[in-house]
């Protein structure tokens, strides 16, 4: 059936082209990450350091944009109207949580909500778009767009494989996602910015460095301490919010119906 109520269904682009764009984005991301981990450049501010910083920034951003170009044209209208709400929730709830002096970010709650309700492609698109729009207020988040896409993609994957059918599975999936996202984002923090964006996390990295770790290793260890806990709480909160939704609202999403995302929780 056409997603539009009164218009005939029209093809939106070429599926092969979209698949190739997505594959190019994923390959670029994986290639950049592998090259950085294998070579571990030591200089940060010399000629090689500047090259690595610019190349990492450009490659991570280009990969995120390729993934967005692959996903965006095929999203249904119900998902497109959900994404701005999710992006605004990321920012509003992120600010609210930041204002109550709790050392958590919770700035990916909207992205995870979209991943749970509309699937991994919509989740990935929300992650990239959220970062692009947030970069209007904080330009340093721009190269982290690929990490945000991974959060949304993995949230959709987790929902598809039944994470929301048991409440205790959501934080477990969040922990696993936090590990992967922390590992993927560490090279950006290490080679583009030479550390982290906060003093607390910077102190942790400094402690690991003084114990003899390389910069990438220290930033990765810090990310593995901070990210899994944050993502576990975000996944749990997103799952609880989705359980609180009226059944007719959650069942309005084709992804939820097709993959029986909510199991017995959906039959309210």
């Amino acid at each position, binding site marked *: 059936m056409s997603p539009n109520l009164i218009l005939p269904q029209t093809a939106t682009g070429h599926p092969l082209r979209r698949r190739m764009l997505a594959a190019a984005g994923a390959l670029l991301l994986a290639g950049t990450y592998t090259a950085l981990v294998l070579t571990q450049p030591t200089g940060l501010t010399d000629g090689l*350091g500047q090259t690595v910083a610019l190349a990492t920034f450009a490659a991570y951003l280009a990969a995120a944009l390729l993934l967005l170009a692959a996903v965006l044209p095929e999203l249904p209208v119900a998902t497109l109207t959900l994404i701005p709400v999710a992006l605004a929730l990321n920012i509003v709830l992120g600010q609210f949580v930041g204002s109550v002096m709790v050392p958590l970010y919770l700035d990916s709650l909207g992205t995870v909500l979209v991943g749970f309700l509309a699937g991994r492609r919509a989740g990935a698109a929300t992650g990239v778009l959220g970062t692009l729009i947030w970069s*209007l207020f904080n330009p340093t988040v*721009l190269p982290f767009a690929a990490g945000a896409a991974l959060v949304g993609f993995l949230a959709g994957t987790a929902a598809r494989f039944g994470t929301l059918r048991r409440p205790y599975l959501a934080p477990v999936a969040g922990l696993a996602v936090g590990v992967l996202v922390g590992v993927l984002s560490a090279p950006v923090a290490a080679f583009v*910015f*030479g550390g982290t964006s*906060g003093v607390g996390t910077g102190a942790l990295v400094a402690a690991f460095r003084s114990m003899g770790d390389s910069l990438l290793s220290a930033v990765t260890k810090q990310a593995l301490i901070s990210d899994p806990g944050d993502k576990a709480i975000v996944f749990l909160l997103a799952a609880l919010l989705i359980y609180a939704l009226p059944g007719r609202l959650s069942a309005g999403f084709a992804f939820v119906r097709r993959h029986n995302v909510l199991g017995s929780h959906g039959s309210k």
Partner: protein
Amino acid sequence: MPRTCQLHPFTVLALAAAVTATTTAAGRWWLSVAVLLACLLLAAWARRARRLAGLAAAILAPAWGSQLLIHGMADTAGGHVLAAAGPLRITAEGLATAGALGLRTGVLVAAGLLCTLLIDRHELIAAVDLSPAPPQLGYLLAATLFLLPALERRQRAIGQAQSLRGATPGGGPRGWFRRVRLRSVPLVLGALQDAADRSAHLAARGFPAAGPHTRLREVQDSAAQRRVRRIALACTVLGPVAVLAPSWMGAA
């Protein structure tokens, strides 16, 4: 009254990208300081200098603190030790690295925020809408930027309503969780209901439009600006290559 730039939004963004990429590649402290001063001067012209300084300070203060801790106070490689106590080791090389990284981050933040302050949001949305980008992108940008203040207002209203009905969250982790629940559940449920209602209206109007469509708001553009954009984009790629090529040859 703040001034906004009369240039096409993409021209401003392309120039900012070229300046940031070339300055990062050059890695010269005087060039970075000159770019930072130029950003401040442009913000002063737009009557937004104080806002730029405040926003940049909020982002840069923790980032600089982190860079100082990691490179300036726990440096393991530098030879000129200025002070050492336990795990802390302050070296001249570490401080220089922290300073260079701080300037690199500063240029990115100042140039990016200046773009946000100079570009009119309506112009940016119209420019995205008129560009060859998918029509969904313009809608998502517009909807998010205009939904943000609406959701912030609604969040405050929910907080006031919960206080009026005597719902006190209490202290500790349980109080924090209760406070998040009292605010986020009505906020998220209401926002999702609105999104579901909106999707039916948009679908009924044939969104996203596949063919060409008339836009009431025009964005000022010219052949000269298009040329500047092309040159700026070329500089974004070729500028760093030209600056860094000698160091690559030296390394080879």
